[in-house]
């Protein structure tokens, strides 16, 4: 009996192959770094060769056709998975430190491409500078990838409310998915590159002015790449704590910009109308939520008798780490794991917030929370006025009920999966005789599944995920992948209906 497959998988492979062939270009950058520092070049040459071979192979079996919803889901899932695998090659070939191990290399690479920022490295000095730079580059690529994915594909097929983002005249000239991806990619690449370049100039400028001694050109580039991508890897063991206060404030600005909708930024720039920011309800909600959370953290730190910080330090660390977790970046300006439970729980709650839809952030995102909050308040209202018909409005525009249900579903699914991973971590750790507290497990689960990076305890900002069992790390690799591409595309691959009906 032949079973007919209803997905034009050859079309998906074609797109995947194209993306893999482009991957050779950014691999040249760490290669150049390796040559500059006189480090081994094999890790990158092997990776370039591998990605090109794979790309050629895929193009050989690819076929022309329309990229529909299923083909897009398949391609997206494959792209993130295969880029993570190719990205692990340099770690394996270099064979330094903990990432010499296959699962660890995959973890580091998946953490990179999903802009998570969770690391299994223990001794940062054990790795060549080119390998450390590769970690930064792959995160920057992950940020670019998610921008294109969210704005060109997910908004079109309506995953979990992604269709809500501001997109009236956005690439209005193209109507089919494939040319839309190309047009969107072109605009986003330009904008994203420009913002990153600006960040490099700002950070390195501080160094040249003598106010940021550690912010060398290497570090300026490395941190510009992962701050705008809201990704969070840092070649410094102390993360952002290695830099002067002024440099940390610049990083806060970079993270905030990276977590702002790029479509909104694009409109503000093209219309030269900054008021558009204020008109956007999600933007106001996003900044408001950050201000509230940072205020709470600052208060918790101030009233913690075991911590004695200057006012400036309190404010800076509260703002920096709140912004870092809300925007799903994952830098740390200090070891917030030593803070009081009050502060840590606020930070834990921040993990679920996320930045704006259409940005480089992960997690649930502010637009969805905004809709959920409005739906709750409507529920209260209709209890009193059962006959009332109240559409939910965001920035004044009504949201259709199907989208509201999508969003409810997405939020619930995110919470359930984060909870499921928590349970798995605790159980799996117990299996090998490792003691992991509930809070530690919740933090690590949320931090990896929601693609943030650091958590608490052993996975704290200055800690490492290396000590988790290999099975746990494997589960985390899978959930980072699922979480990054907005859950739905990957999960649908595992349904019968996707392939058959």
């Amino acid at each position, binding site marked *: 009996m032949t079973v007919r497959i209803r997905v034009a998988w050859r079309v998906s492979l074609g797109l995947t192959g194209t993306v893999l062939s482009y991957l050779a270009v950014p691999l040249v950058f760490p290669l150049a770094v390796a040559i500059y520092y006189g480090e081994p070049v094999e890790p990158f040459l092997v990776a370039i060769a591998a990605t090109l071979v794979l790309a050629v192979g895929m193009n050989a079996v690819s076929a022309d056709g329309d990229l529909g919803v299923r083909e897009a889901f398949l391609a997206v899932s494959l792209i993130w998975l295969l880029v993570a695998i190719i990205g692990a090659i340099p770690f394996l070939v270099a064979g330094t430190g903990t990432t010499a191990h296959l699962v660890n290399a995959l973890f580091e690479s998946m953490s990179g491409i999903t802009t998570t920022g969770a690391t299994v490295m223990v001794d940062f000095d054990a790795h060549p500078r080119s390998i450390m730079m590769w970690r930064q580059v792959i995160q920057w690529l992950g940020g670019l990838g998610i921008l294109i994915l969210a704005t060109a594909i997910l908004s079109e097929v309506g995953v979990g409310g992604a269709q809500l983002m501001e997109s009236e005249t956005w690439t209005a000239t193209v109507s089919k998915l494939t040319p839309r991806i190309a047009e969107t990619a072109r605009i986003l690449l330009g904008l994203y590159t420009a913002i990153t370049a600006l960040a490099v100039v700002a950070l390195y400028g501080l160094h040249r002015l003598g106010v940021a001694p550690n912010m060398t050109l290497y570090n300026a580039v490395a941190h510009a790449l992962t701050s705008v991508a809201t990704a969070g890897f840092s070649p410094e063991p102390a993360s952002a704590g290695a830099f002067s206060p002024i440099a940390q404030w610049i990083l806060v600005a970079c993270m905030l910009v990276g977590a702002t909708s790029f479509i909104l930024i694009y409109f503000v720039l093209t219309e030269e109308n900054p008021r558009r920011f204020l008109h956007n309800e999600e933007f106001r909600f996003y900044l408001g939520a950050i201000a509230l959370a940072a205020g709470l953290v600052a208060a918790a730190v101030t009233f913690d008798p075991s911590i004695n910080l200057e006012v400036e330090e309190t404010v800076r660390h509260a703002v920096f780490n709140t912004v870092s977790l809300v925007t799903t970046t994952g830098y740390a300006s200090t070891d917030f794991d030593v803070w009081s439970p009050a502060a840590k729980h606020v930070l834990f709650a921040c993990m679920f917030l996320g930045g704006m839809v259409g940005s480089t952030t992960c997690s649930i995102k502010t637009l969805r929370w905004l809709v959920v909050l409005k739906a709750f308040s409507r529920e209260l209202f209709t209890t009193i*006025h059962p*006959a*009332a*018909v*109240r*559409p939910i*409005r965001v920035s*004044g525009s*009504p949201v259709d009920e199907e989208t509201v249900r999508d969003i409810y579903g997405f939020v619930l699914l995110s919470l359930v999966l984060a909870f499921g991973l928590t349970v798995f971590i605790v159980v799996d750790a117990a299996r090998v005789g490792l003691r992991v507290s509930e809070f530690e497990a919740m933090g690590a689960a949320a931090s990896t599944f929601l693609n943030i990076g650091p958590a608490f305890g052993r996975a704290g900002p200055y800690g490492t995920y290396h000590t988790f069992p290999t099975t746990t790390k494997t589960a985390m690799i899978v959930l980072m992948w699922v979480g990054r591409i907005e859950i739905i595309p990957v999960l649908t691959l595992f349904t019968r209906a996707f392939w058959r009906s």
Partner: protein
Amino acid sequence: MRVIVIGAGQVGTNIAASLASTHDVIVIDIDEDRTEQLAYELDVLTLTGDGTDIDVLREADIGEVDMVIASTDTDAVNLVACGTAKTAGDPFTIARVKSHRYLRAWEDAEDAYGVDFMACSDLRTAENIVQVIGLPAAVDVDPFAGGLVQMAEFEIPSDSPIANQVVSEADQFDSLTFAAIFREDHFELPQGNTHIQAGDSVVVIGSPESVQGFAPSVVPTQTPDRADELVVVGGSKIGYHTARLLEERNLQPKLIEQDTTRARELAEALPNTLVMEHDATDVEFLAHEHIDDADAVIAALDSDEKNLLLSLLAKRIGVDRIIAVVDTGEYVDLFEEIGIDVAINPRLVMAEEITRFTRESVAENITVLEEDLAEVLELELSENSPLVDRPIRELVGDLPDSTVIGAITRDHTFITPRGDTTLKPGDHVVVFVETEFADDITAMA
């Protein structure tokens, strides 16, 4: 004037009937039964055919026609008919439309569709309703001279402070003119010592501020503000426009619509209106939502029967003011007799709107009062009008009987008419006149 009326539905028939005595009217309708019936009922020429067909229009001698009124039930047909008429002659074209979207498009480019004047009955009716709500106690309100002048008709309830006063006591406003007092089936022109009685209808003309200021002395309640409960029942186009216009005045009305899809549509289009999906004739629902406390209920359901039922219910549970949309002209009296405060007939509103263009094109605006007993007209005075360059006191002898000059605007400023005021060419004059003499006064402008 030769006038073609396309479409012999209720509106077309009404217009044809009101024009038949003074103009040569040709009615075109696609339905032969209709045209035959009309030829029998009215003194008009009839033609059976498609009003958008150039040959049919030629047959009606379109080249010699002064005005085309397209009043079928289909917007697109009316627009095409006007466009076609313009290609074959140069009549003044009037199109009746239901969708206000056509109106918006036409307002942006005034010669669009070959239409010289577009009348949107639903929008106009809603405007009328909102003006009436804006002045509690007023039964009719109309703006003139681009809003610089307002005409309002008030019914005087028995507990009104001005009942039993004389006009000079009641008139505390410089820029307000008492134009007429209707009593039973006649009217009189008020003098300073005329007594105002309960049950009278008083017509005043003046600046909008003075009319607004006068309203509380008729019934001492405030004009509506945000705290007021205004309930629109029925999500018809009229209901929608009414709620929308109320929103524009920073009010937050409620709107009750029974149909799920329509309710959702309305809720999306009206951010500041509380839309409720329910049967408005359910008494329990009305009590639960405290509709009995409403300051005004507007019945805009899709049938007169439902509106009547709802109005009666609303009256019984104690709603202060009820305004009902009545589709059938004959029922207007009936509604008002049983105590509904204001009954508005969209077709009459439409006829008013369209008829003003048949007034030899001098009258800029017109309001018909008390079943066409009298009219309020806006005239623009020409260079050789016999009315200009003389003080008003000298004009009185020349004016037809039962004429009152209510207000004057010159270069967009309001002038209160006094005995020594001199009219100038280009002035806009708002006059109250007995319908009989309307054409006489128009001829003098």
